[in-house]
């Protein structure tokens, strides 16, 4: 079984940023993502998640390293000033690299 190294970019942010996030994905060429409704707490207080508009989402993107870097740079430049969000990256190995 052959696996292929990729980056997993994880974004946790207020649910309101959703449309902008998806627009960014389209712009930089991210074609797949997975989205979780989550509760959370951070520097901007607790987000209990009973009102979707005030809630949190976690979005995960598997992407080739170069694309992951582009995505994270855009997030840093354009989303950090506007939204409550945190972003991190980790290493994964995928089956079927053609899908990414």
């Amino acid at each position, binding site marked *: 079984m052959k696996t292929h190294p990729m980056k997993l970019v994880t974004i946790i942010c*207020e649910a*309101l940023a959703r449309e*902008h996030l998806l*627009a*960014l994905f389209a*712009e930089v060429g991210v074609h797949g993502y997975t989205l979780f*409704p989550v509760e959370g707490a951070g520097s901007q207080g607790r987000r*209990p*998640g*009973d*009102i*979707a*508009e*005030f*809630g949190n989402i976690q979005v995960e993107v598997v992407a080739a390293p170069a694309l992951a870097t582009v995505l994270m740079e855009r997030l840093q430049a*354009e989303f950090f*000033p*506007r*939204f409550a969000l945190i972003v991190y990256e980790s290493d994964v190995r995928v089956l079927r690299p053609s899908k990414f």
Partner: protein
Amino acid sequence: MQPDLLHAIQANLLSPAVLFFVLGVIASLSKSDLKFPEALYVTLTIYLLTAIGFKGGVALSQAGFEAVWRPGLAAIVLGTLIPLWSYPVLRFVGKLSVADSAAIAAHYGSVSAVTFIAATNFLKQVNEPFESYATAFLAVMESPAILVGIMLGKRGGKREGSLWGGGTRRALHEAAFGRSVLLLVGALIIGALSGKRGMDMTEGFFVTPFQGVLALFLLEMGMVASRRLEDLKRVGLFLLCFGIAAPLVHGFIGVALGHWAGLSLGGATLLGVLAASASYIAAPAAMRLSLPEASPTLYLTSALAITFPFNITVGIPIYYALARWWNS
């Protein structure tokens, strides 16, 4: 009039809906593990908006458009003007930033559907008739103030980058197709088209359980609002006063305008309530996206933790008393 007012306030405070709101506050303050799932919150919202819209539409089909355009126009004008005079007060008396002033002004020009619904409940309880098509005013008052607020707040700021252009276009789209406007206006039109016959079919759903559903929803709103209470000290004394003075002033103007536009005593009360209420769902979402530099703590706390409870408990009876005084 005094004993009347006290009596009305008491009647309101002892209605199931308001008592459930208080229970929600207690649940939250006592750190109870009671929690509404998000899906229930959304469901109750969808139900209340479609039900009130549908009933309003049926009423509209019976009253005819001529009866509505004049007070409807008054409602739109009111929604547009409130942020224009609130802004300087917030900016120069309250010394808030451009963005904060604009955002708060937008909240107070826009409306709270739940406050409106609670007011119709109150009127029913005191047996005061009102124009059921008043929902139409609710529908047209949500968006104008938000658009005005965004324009006020954007004068200073500038956005660049492909994602952030078209902010106004997006705001306009939201004003027309945002969840609450779409449901309200949609159900209103459906009610108008299907008329009495449609009402006969769906009464058991849109009317029979309505007041009880509202009570359940206010239980949740009590929890939501009082979660914001801990931010009260962060908003400062000025905003605290504004959160109570603004609804009183706007309520008075709304009642007067309603009277002038030919609405009944109940209808004028409702226009007063709309003017007095502050949005805490549509406006915050719009501000978060269009004026991210405005502080959610300020606008959400004042709209949700000060003005909303004030209106729900004593505001509504006060606007009713004002309408009676004006009528007499």
